[in-house]
């Protein structure tokens, strides 16, 4: 057999076998990978809107997604908002829950971040950061309270606590939330929510 024919036959068969094999592996794992992603979103929704039972994605654009959240009796509890933006090191993705009138933030959780471990990465810490996001009044812009305080009672209703040593990461989260609030208000006015 001619060497070129052999080269082509060998490469093609290796390619075909590998393609077929991967198609099998791809199909087998596909559902599970999709399920993992779905579960992560669902858990986040349940964290940010307490009592959440049924949720459905009603809006999506780049770095922003809005989920409508209902309780067991199918009453509207509010919206879970997935948003992302530039942090200290790389993009930060987070989710927060708001009431149907968009006047109050229920709670916030961070889904993805690559901030400095031990400093900026404290945005994922309940004690240092997240507990101060419970029940915020968002009729005004959310602002940062400097210097850091120890308990949520020391903050005014639309303030959140800063992380000492990680001003930029704290500011980044506040900016992402404010921007997302502005966008969903606009969507609400257009009747898209």
């Amino acid at each position: 057999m001619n060497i070129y024919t052999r080269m082509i036959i060998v490469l093609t068969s290796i390619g075909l076998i590998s393609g077929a094999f991967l198609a099998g592996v791809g199909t087998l794992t596909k559902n599970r990978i999709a399920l993992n992603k779905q579960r992560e979103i669902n858990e986040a929704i349940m964290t940010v809107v307490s009592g959440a039972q049924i949720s459905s994605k009603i809006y999506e654009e780049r770095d922003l997604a809005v989920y409508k959240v209902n309780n067991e009796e199918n009453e509207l509890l509010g919206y879970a908002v997935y948003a992302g933006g530039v942090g200290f090191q790389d993009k930060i993705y987070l989710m927060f829950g708001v009431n149907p009138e968009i006047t109050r933030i229920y709670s916030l959780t961070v889904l993805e971040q690559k901030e400095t471990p031990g400093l900026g990465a404290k945005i994922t810490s309940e004690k240092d950061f997240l507990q101060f996001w419970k029940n915020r009044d968002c009729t005004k812009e959310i602002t940062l309270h400097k210097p850091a305080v120890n308990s949520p009672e020391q903050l005014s209703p639309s303030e959140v606590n800063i992380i000492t040593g990680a001003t930029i990461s704290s500011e980044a989260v506040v900016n992402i939330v404010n921007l997302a609030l502005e966008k969903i208000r606009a969507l609400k006015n257009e009747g898209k929510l």
Partner: protein
Amino acid sequence: MAEKTISNEFTKGLWSENPIFRQLLGLCPTLAVTNAVVNGLAMGAATTFVLLFSSIVISSIKKLIPNQVRIASFIVVIATFVTVADRFLAAFFPDISKALGPYVPLIVVNCIILGRQEAFSSKNPVFRSIIDALGMGIGFTISLLILSSIREILGNGTFFGIPLTGAWFKPWLIMILPPGAFFTLGLLMGIFKYLDKKRK
């Protein structure tokens, strides 16, 4: 070169031909994923898996592959097993898969794997290739574990996520940041060279 015994074939990957410290291969994943022990272990296991199966396949079909297209064939075989490892981690260990990010697919270009195929599996029988792949894979994994243990303990005060040190210890943040990776590996290379010299 004299015929090596099977046990030699295995142990050479651990010390005398250790992929990281001796051959300086596979440094990208070594530096990138060793900020926590669990990541280092997952990376070591995934690499060993790919190395082992690629070696089995390539040493079994080596006679069929024409010399001119051998590199291309090796790469396709390696990429296939890397995809399997990547999908498996994403499906069953989503947290680890997320932490390792693009470094799992990047096993494809880990020079250790292509290097072993070219230097060993394509010239040796299946059984020897398996032993060689296991030795190299385990040597790589152990090196990753040493590096990630040092970095996690000093940089975070934990080992496998379990707190080790008391409150008195202020973690050296720098160790889990990129510079810490370079410093630790650089110093370890020096220590490795020193030990090697003493042995001789």
